[in-house]
């Protein structure tokens, strides 16, 4: 080794330290040790300066100091590598410099021993240096790759972590939005349910109100219908009492008239029958009225449509006549004899018929009120018949008729042509529901404006 080497090796050592600190990031990995590493250039600089300035005067062995410093540097590198052995590039760095450090150590040992190797060994020494140097270069390159790979891995992990965190944040946000929406939806559902309940309640109230309204229309008719039989009951009882008195007197007479007595007895018997008959008539009207006001049980029973139609025709007629004293109409009934009973809810069917009759009377009354038609005879007729396996009820009037445009709407709820307060607009709508949904039948209308209207109810005999 000549002194020219000397100029290079100390800066080389300082460079190694600088590279080491940079490559293994010792300031962050080993902050304590790094502080000392950072000062390692000082002895190098001192030796370098001293030898360069005063080497010849002081007869210093520059080569020895040079190697000693390099060995110190390499030892520091190995120490750092050992400290960071868990870090793969650090291990590789340690392995990279170890042979070179051994070479330097060996040379230093020889120098200290003052022995000079045989010239024959110079070549092998150079070879060892070269080999260890290339070994170092190769492994350092490998370490650099490892470091880059690790850095790339770390970055990828960091990115993945960031990605994962982002996804988690998004999930949390989605979760929050879902919870929010769910809450809003369930609140809406709750509100809708409440509204529905309220609507159902209102509907029930309206149906009941419509029932009561029709009952109100009937009240006067019912009163009249009950008053009539009651009058007969009273009159026939009174007259029977007179007949009994007369019979008693007759029996006391010396010359009894058996013929007269027999007549009186026949009359008495007949009167008692009439009292019973009219009493039953009044009772049946009261029963009908109660049935009408009662909530429907919806129970189907064999129902006599003829009797039902007859009863409600009279009630409707007297109901209207009670309100309009001058009103009169001809009632025509054509009830099919032997009409089979219909499986139905009598009360509901009665309401339908009552509604149809009330409308019919209203229509003829309106036409009569308009006036201007001489010889107009208001007529409402009802006809029953069996057609196939259906019972058909036709309610016909020669009233005002329904304009074609209005015919479309008459079965819609709340549609009414009557002035406010006179009709609920539910009558025909309910009637339609009762016939179609309740009994599987049909309710249809044929009408000609100015000529009259016919409503036809078809009820299947056997409802499945």
């Amino acid at each position, binding site marked *: 080794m000549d002194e020219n080497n000397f100029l290079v090796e100390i800066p080389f050592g300082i460079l190694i330290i600088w590279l080491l600190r940079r490559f293994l990031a010792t300031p962050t990995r080993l902050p304590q040790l790094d502080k000392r590493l950072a000062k390692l250039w000082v002895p190098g600089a001192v030796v370098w300066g001293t030898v360069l300035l005063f080497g010849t005067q002081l007869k210093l062995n520059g080569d020895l100091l040079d190697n000693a410093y390099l060995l110190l540097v390499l030892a520091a590198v190995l120490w750092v590598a050992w400290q960071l052995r868990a870090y793969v590039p650090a291990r590789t760095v340690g392995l990279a410099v170890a042979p070179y450090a051994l070479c330097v150590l060996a040379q230093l040992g020889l120098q200290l021993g003052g022995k000079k190797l045989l010239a024959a060994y110079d070549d092998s020494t150079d070879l060892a240096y070269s080999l260890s140097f290339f070994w170092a270069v190769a492994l350092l390159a490998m370490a650099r790759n490892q470091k880059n790979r690790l850095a790339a891995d770390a970055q990828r992990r960091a990115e993945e972590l960031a990605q994962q965190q982002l996804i988690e944040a998004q999930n949390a946000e989605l979760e929050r939005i879902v919870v929010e929406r769910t809450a809003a939806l369930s609140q809406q559902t709750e509100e809708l349910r409440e509204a529905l309940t309220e609507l159902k309640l209102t509907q029930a109230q309206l149906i009941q109100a419509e029932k009561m309204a029709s009952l109100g229309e009937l009240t006067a008719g019912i009163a009249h219908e009950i008053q009539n039989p009651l009058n007969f009951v009273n*009159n026939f009882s009174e007259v029977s009492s007179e007949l009994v008195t007369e019979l008693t007197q007759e029996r006391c007479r010396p010359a009894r008239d058996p013929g007269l007595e027999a007549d009186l007895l026949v009359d008495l018997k007949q*009167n008692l029958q*009439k009292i019973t008959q009219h009493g039953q008539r009044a009772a049946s009207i009261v029963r009908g009225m109660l049935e009408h006001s009662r909530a429907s049980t919806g129970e189907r029973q064999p129902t006599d449509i003829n009797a039902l139609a007859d009863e409600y025709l009279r009630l409707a007629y007297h109901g209207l006549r009670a309100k309009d*004293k001058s009103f009169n*109409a*001809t009632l025509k009934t054509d009830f099919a004899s032997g009409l089979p009973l219909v499986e139905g809810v009598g009360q509901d069917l009665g309401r339908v018929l009552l509604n149809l009759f009330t409308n019919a009377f209203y229509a003829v009354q309106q036409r009569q009120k308009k006036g201007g038609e001489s010889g107009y005879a208001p007529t409402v007729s009802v006809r029953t018949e069996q057609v196939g396996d259906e019972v058909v009820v036709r309610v016909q009037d020669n009233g005002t008729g329904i304009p074609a445009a209005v015919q479309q709407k008459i079965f819609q709820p709340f549609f009414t042509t009557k002035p406010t307060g006179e009709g609920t607009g539910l009558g025909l709508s309910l009637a339609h529901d009762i016939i179609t949904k309740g009994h599987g039948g049909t309710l249809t209308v044929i009408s000609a404006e100015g000529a009259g209207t016919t409503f036809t109810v078809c009820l299947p005999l056997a409802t499945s």
Partner: protein
Amino acid sequence: MKILVVDDEPDVRALFEQRFRREIRSGALAFSFAYSGEEALDYLHGHHSEVVLILSDINMPGMSGLELLRRVRIEPTPPPPPRVMMITAYGDSESRAQAMSLGADDFLTKPVDFAALKEKLLALPSA
């Protein structure tokens, strides 16, 4: 004295016949019955001047009692014109005024007070 009773209730006949059985038996009163205004008019056409009094219900299907009264009053009948008494379950003043303006002689409300009716009938001049 012939009286025509017009009412759509068939049992009215039995009632009148029993209520007035003594008068009928004695021949003081004679009753005929019609169950509608139309039937009453037919009867009147067939029995001119026989009927002295018409007792008619107002509320009947078809021709009402008031319509019957109007027709009786406008139709030329041999004198003397029959007296007409209206009977109704609806004894309101409006109906009464209407009946009177159409030429009714009297206006009774149901339930009929037969004792009062009997007095009225027997008090009639031709009875």
